[in-house]
């Protein structure tokens, strides 16, 4: 790569977002804002039972209803599917991967499983007619409980498999048992992490059109247009080359739109059958059963340690709910945390086992953090438990175990390239003023106050920036982890940047323009960033797993270098100097020693396009594509603290303060980074205090709407105190690590540790998420009794 001299940089400054204008003025292109001439609307008839045999589907009344264009059962459409909705992560050789077609035919396996579709001239008429579809269901036994599902005699999700066990995956170093036997102290704790509903504010939506020669265009509220394109070939048999996927403005994802859904295949199949554009917009209560959920795990975590607090073993055994089917990366979600059960700590002996379990529920898949919040939660909760067991201050215990030398080779087999966990914790403690919190805590306890304070910590790291393709291959993930950038300097000097990432709130258009602006020395206003359309961006692996900057952002640097190299050759040729005699800064090439002899890169672009005077053999144009496959994951980390106030009479628990110090490497746009931290920690806090998808014993979802599944509002939250410490990643030229998931990974254990801390003097040692008033109150009653 060429050395690129830079001027005062855009990178590192809080450039205001160019994305904002359309959202602030109501001009966004969310799917439901789009229609095509002749569009018809699809409604999906969904099974109301957690498990049922479909005896018959009668569509006569629906087909006869006003405005209905067509109606189909699962059997009617079976011939349209050339393959199952794909799961890209067969985590073990013997994993059970039952087929999953867009509509159920003989058996529905969770509430919301699609059974039939109705297509009508309007959204309302489609909904009316869907009510007229008569499905004869025979209700079957079901369970939503990940532990019960493994018991003998449990209702089976896929009877032909003979078990609900999907897979067992294990990673263990030699000597774990010996180290356990030799330990001074062994602490084992059990943790239930609730099922969470991602709740991107925009429900999903799709619109599809199929042309006369079978070329298909689909607009989808997806995070993964490129992955969706090849998945659609698998399901529909349409060659990828004939499929165009457009992700227009997408209203949040958090992993829930990192997937390939039944409705995406359905609208194309129906558009092809009907010769008309077909549109579907998800309703929120439909979203709660038809879009993936997250978490839903039961862990047992064991630490072994010396009496002075050096942890010698971490051993985790977890049962992880898959739901009723395997979506795109369902089985792999636990694995995304599998290498960080040591967190930021140096732990020599390592054992992690996951059991994937089918239950009669909506499938799980990636939800913000995906596997890493699960790992960090059990780890950070157990750090506090071990601290209590050993009588060591929880902060001190963490410090005694921090990794301090880099690169750090982990017992789990990966290598952390950089970090400074003490620095983040030091800064956190400066901001927190722990002494005054502790004295207020003591005063309230001694004064008999019914509102007690607690403070909880979480020091964490994560592996993100997904990912080195070779490692993904080694752990049986079906696709690569690289990303691409194409940069095109137009004849008159404006710059088109085409990225393989697919933002849905992260502000890539702004940040990417900052990176390219620096690399090419051009004004931000001259740069346009294009994304989210496979016809424009052919190469890409999309946006998830805090990967966009650390992979796609770095690809921009490499593509820029190619542009500068070619421009340098053009300038060298035209100024008749050696390329080595040219300096490039602020977008201008100058001859060393004769700076008055110069040419801007934008002027070079005109020369490149006019092609009147190019070096022999040089192709016209100034365009370059780079794909970048990172050599390592990236490793953000940091230290978070939560201060809570617990009403001991009502159990009502309120977050009073939240302090987060993160090391995400270099911050390209600190304003955007801070926004990502705010949003991330809020989702972890929400899991700790409010959110939980609750099922009854028969696997009926009880929290079916936004009025009973409690996404917090501004009124429940404080303002946050955030700061960054920075160790640049040596793995990539930008020094970046990724920030999208850090907050969610770190925050839930900090909050729950704070709740336990508030009540610790009463004897409370555990608290299940979310810490509802009733759970908190009952925990107090139990220790009183």
């Amino acid at each position: 790569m060429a050395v690129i001299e830079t001027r005062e940089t855009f990178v590192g400054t809080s450039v205001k977002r160019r994305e904002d204008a359309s959202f602030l003025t109501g001009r966004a292109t969310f799917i439901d804002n789009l229609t095509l001439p002749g569009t018809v609307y699809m409604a999906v008839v969904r099974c109301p039972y957690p498990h049922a045999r479909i005896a018959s589907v009668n569509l006569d009344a629906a087909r006869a209803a006003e405005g209905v264009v067509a109606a189909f059962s699962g059997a009617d459409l079976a011939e349209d599917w050339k393959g199952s909705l794909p799961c890209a992560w067969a985590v073990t050789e013997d994993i059970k991967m039952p087929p999953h077609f867009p509509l159920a035919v003989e058996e529905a396996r969770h509430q919301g499983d699609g059974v039939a579709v109705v297509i009508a001239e309007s959204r309302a008429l489609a909904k009316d007619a869907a009510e007229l579809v008569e499905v004869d269901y025979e209700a079957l036994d079901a369970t939503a409980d990940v532990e019960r599902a493994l018991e003998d005699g449990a209702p089976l999700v896929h009877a032909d498999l003979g078990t609900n066990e999907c897979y067992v995956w294990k990673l263990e170093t030699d000597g774990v048992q010996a180290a356990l036997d030799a330990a001074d102290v062994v602490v084992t704790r059990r943790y239930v992490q609730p099922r969470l509903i991602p709740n991107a504010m925009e429900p999903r939506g799709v619109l599809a059109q199929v042309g006369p020669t079978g070329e298909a265009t689909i607009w989808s509220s997806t995070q993964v247009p490129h992955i969706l394109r090849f998945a659609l070939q698998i399901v529909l048999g349409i060659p990828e080359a004939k499929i165009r996927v457009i992700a227009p403005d997408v209203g949040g994802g958090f992993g829930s739109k990192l997937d390939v859904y039944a409705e995406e295949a359905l609208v194309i199949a129906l558009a092809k059958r009907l010769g008309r554009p077909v549109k579907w917009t998800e309703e929120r209560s439909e979203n709660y059963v038809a879009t993936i959920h997250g978490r839903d795990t039961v862990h047992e975590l064991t630490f072994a340690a010396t009496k002075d607090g050096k942890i010698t073993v971490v051993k985790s055994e977890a049962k992880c709910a898959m739901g009723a089917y395997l979506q795109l990366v369902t089985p792999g979600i636990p694995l995304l945390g599998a290498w960080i059960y040591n967190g930021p700590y140096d732990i020599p002996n390592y054992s992690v086992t996951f059991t994937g379990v089918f239950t009669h529920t909506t499938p799980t898949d990636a939800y913000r953090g995906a596997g890493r919040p699960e790992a960090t939660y059990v780890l950070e909760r157990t750090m506090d438990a071990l601290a209590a067991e050993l009588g060591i201050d929880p902060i001190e215990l963490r410090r005694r175990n921090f990794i301090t030398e880099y690169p750090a080779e982990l017992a789990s087999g990966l290598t952390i390239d950089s970090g400074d966990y003490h620095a983040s914790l030091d800064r956190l403690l400066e901001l927190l003023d722990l002494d005054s919190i502790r004295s207020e805590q003591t005063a309230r306890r001694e004064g008999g106050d019914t509102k007690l304070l607690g403070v909880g910590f979480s020091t964490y790291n994560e592996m993100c920036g997904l990912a080195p393709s070779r490692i993904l291959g080694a752990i049986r993930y079906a696709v690569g982890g690289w990303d691409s950038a194409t940069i095109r300097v137009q004849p008159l000097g404006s710059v088109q940047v085409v990225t393989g990432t697919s933002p849905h709130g992260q502000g890539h258009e702004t940040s990417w323009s900052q990176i390219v602006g620096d690399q090419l020395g051009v004004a931000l206003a001259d740069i346009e960033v294009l994304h989210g359309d496979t016809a424009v961006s052919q190469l890409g692996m999309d946006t998830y797993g805090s990967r966009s900057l650390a992979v796609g952002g770095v690809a921009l640097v490499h593509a820029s270098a190619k542009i500068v190299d070619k421009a340098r050759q053009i300038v060298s040729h035209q100024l008749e100097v050696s390329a080595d005699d040219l300096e490039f800064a602020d977008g201008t090439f100058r001859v060393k020693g004769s700076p008055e002899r110069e040419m801007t890169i934008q002027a070079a672009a005109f020369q490149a396009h006019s092609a009147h005077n190019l070096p022999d053999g040089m192709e016209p144009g100034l365009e370059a594509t780079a794909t970048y496959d990172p050599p390592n994951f990236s490793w953000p980390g940091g230290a978070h603290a939560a201060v809570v106030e617990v009403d001991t009479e009502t159990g009502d628990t309120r977050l009073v303060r939240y302090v987060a110090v993160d090391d995400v490497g270099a911050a390209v746009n600190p304003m955007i980074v801070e926004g990502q931290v705010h949003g991330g920690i809020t989702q972890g806090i929400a899991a700790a205090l409010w959110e939980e998808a609750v099922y009854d014993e028969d696997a009926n979802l009880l929290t079916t709407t936004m009025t009973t599944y409690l996404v917090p509002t501004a009124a429940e939250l404080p303002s946050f105190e955030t700061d960054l410490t920075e160790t640049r990643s040596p793995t990539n030229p930008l020094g970046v690590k990724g920030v999208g998931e850090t907050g969610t990974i770190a925050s839930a254990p900090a909050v729950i540790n704070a709740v336990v801390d508030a009540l610790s003097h009463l004897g409370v040692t555990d608290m299940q998420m979310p810490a509802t008033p009733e759970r908190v109150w009952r925990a107090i009653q139990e220790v009183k009794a």
Partner: protein
Amino acid sequence: MSIARKGKDLLRRVALTVNGTRHELELEPRELLVYVLRERLGLTGTTVGCDTSACGACTVLVGGESVKSCTMLGVQAEGFEITTIEGLATNGDLHPVQQAFHEHHALQCGFCTPGMVLAAVSLIESGGATDEEAIREGLEGNLCRCTGYHNIVEAVAAAAGVI
């Protein structure tokens, strides 16, 4: 209000003023105001985020006050002056709340933004945005999943002149 019949549907002729423009429409009674705005008038800035009147994404101003347009029928809007996000800027200049959202990075995916902005405008104009706590309470009807509200609260406080 007069009644027209089209097929078996009962249609109502309704006049309402949106962003200063008067519209006469024939509406089915069941058409929610949000769908009237989005599908009849093409004002798609107002979004639909839930089906239980919980999320506030569809908030518009009706007679100057914040209202969830998913919980009002189009026919109920007869005679009202309605302001949507498309009508908030004047002569191309963003409203101070829109400007503050931009300055304070109070939006990410942008889906809740129109409703959040209009809820904030109503809160400020009613004199309710007196301090951080009042702003947080005053935005209790609007969910955002991206920002954690921190920057939204800052933006509203800035626009209200209370920071």
